[in-house]
């Protein structure tokens, strides 16, 4: 499903370094992500994934390195980057005391969509999700799986070029996870680049390419098939464990 593109990559990272005092969270990361690609970003807790995502989203400044996201420079054009990316965090990040519709309206509003655009897209998304009948329900009353799907739609409300998903399926049942990945495929088919972190190794198999971070460095970066072949494993789980062991980190 990976679309090979000859055009400029949408995410371009060269020698990204991020230090917190003496601690090196990101140690010379370099990678490209192509348009419409589903890019898996794996690593144990504390390996530096979240820091890297925060830098790509313009939430933190890198210590050094050359980084472009959606064609813009993270040092000087963070505002333009923010307009072109969507973000969904590991914690459920919508307002529990607002209704489904109000959440859409709010997030559409902060991305500067006009009233009629918001109305149109809300209607469209509710129909896609088959949630029109619960549009006025307060979010607190909706099951987690549904909320997670809503959060993905909210992250896409402004039609971003890239969407960052930080452990989007944490705590979600297998069926909803499956449906969630269908949504991700649909988005990728439309040309949206998906940058996703996960702890589920079966999900890693769904990605076009996967990078595995260990102790702040990228230890491996390839398609799941190639990785399994290189590391002589049958599953991504084995690949991951082998990599983590090789670095002396038995996490």
């Amino acid at each position, binding site marked *: 499903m990976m679309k090979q593109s000859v055009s400029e990559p949408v995410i371009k990272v060269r020698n990204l370094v991020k230090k917190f005092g003496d601690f090196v969270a990101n140690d010379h990361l370099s990678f490209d992500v192509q348009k419409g690609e589903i890019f898996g970003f794996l690593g144990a807790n504390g390996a530096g994934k979240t820091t890297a995502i925060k830098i790509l989203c313009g939430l933190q400044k890198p210590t050094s390195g050359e980084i472009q996201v959606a064609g813009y420079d993270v040092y000087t054009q963070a505002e333009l980057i923010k307009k072109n990316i969507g973000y969904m*965090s590991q914690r459920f*990040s919508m*307002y529990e005391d607002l209704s489904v519709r109000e959440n859409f309206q709010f997030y559409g509003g902060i991305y500067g969509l006009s009233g009629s655009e918001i109305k149109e897209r809300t209607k469209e998304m509710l129909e896609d999700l088959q949630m029109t009948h619960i549009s006025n329900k307060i979010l607190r009353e909706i099951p987690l799986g549904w909320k997670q799907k809503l959060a993905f739609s909210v992250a896409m409300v402004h039609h971003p070029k890239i969407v960052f998903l930080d452990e989007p399926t944490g705590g979600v049942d297998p069926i909803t996870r499956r449906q969630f990945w269908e949504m991700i495929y649909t988005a990728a088919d439309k040309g949206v680049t998906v940058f996703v972190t996960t702890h589920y190794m079966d999900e890693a198999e769904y990605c076009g390419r996967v990078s595995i971070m260990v102790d702040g460095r990228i230890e491996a970066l390839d398609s799941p098939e190639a990785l399994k072949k290189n590391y002589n494993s049958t599953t991504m789980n084995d690949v991951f464990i082998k990599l983590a062991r090789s670095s002396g980190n038995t996490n």
Partner: protein
Amino acid sequence: MKGFILKEFLHIFRDLRTMLILFGMPVAQVLLFGYAITNEINNAQIAILDHSKDPVTQEITYKLLSSGYFQLNDQLSDASEIEQAFKKGKIKQVVVFEPNFAQKMTKDPPAVIQLITDASDPNTANLLSNYTQAITGDYLRQTSGSKRNLPVINIETTMQYNPELRGVFMFVPGTITILLMLISAMMTSISIAREKELGTMEVLLVSPLKPLHIIVGKVIPYVILSFINALIILILAATVFGMPFQGSLVLLLLQSALFIVMALSMGIFISTVSNNQQTAMLLSMFVLMLPTILLSGFIFPIENMPLPLQILSNIMPSKWFIIIIKSIMLKGLGIAYIWKETLILIGMTLFFIGMSVKKFKIRLD
């Protein structure tokens, strides 16, 4: 921006607890402070032990009882009953006239009135004995034909700005201050901390909204609500308790707006250093509420504090705001007299905004 403010109002209106704190508390507090907590004396129960029972003692007794401050609870006939009368607990003071009071007054002065007061509550005891002395003194001046009894010096006291010594005049400025502080600072700090705790703050920061917009959007609803609250308290104070309005209403409202902005900037600062609602709440309670109540001169006069506390009270924004409200409401003073306090509040506002921005930037790096 409009959507942001709307969303914030929805948060407030949908949370019963927040609504109660916002609107129930101000009204309850004003009524409580106005009615229940008072340092005036009304109808204090006293007993009289009159060994003389002559026209003069009866006249003085009548004067005392008709003053409105005292109410006769018991007529005692013997000194041994005094102890018993106090032990029943209702009586605050016993007035004892010595035998042959009128006779002694003219022929062998001085005639003695003994005041025995229940000093387990020292302030009340003091007030009661002062009132009694004042009323007796008045009586003597009015009636005594004999020049010898006229005091050489006559002190005439005028209670300026609050002639009836109404306690409510003191409590209303304090209550406004506390409530504005509570609502503005505590509620904003909690609501910002809540966004951090729930993870929605991250999403907001990833959006094209600038941090300044996020903060302004969160703060504006509380500015509006705090202002409405200040108005409610002032209207209650004026209508229910007859609090006077000597000065300019416009100036008072402008000053309230300044204080609200100051409290909000404090709230924002608190939220930048706390990561969840509990921390924000505790910090607000200990950093804002207690010092505001204890050190602002609201309940305990600053002049009576030990020097270190007096110095410390200067960094309490509420101290300055209470001075401002009292000056405007009770004394009718204009800006020319309170510019110093105003400048201090403006300075504190700038300080907290500056600190918050600095904190915010550090977090992003």
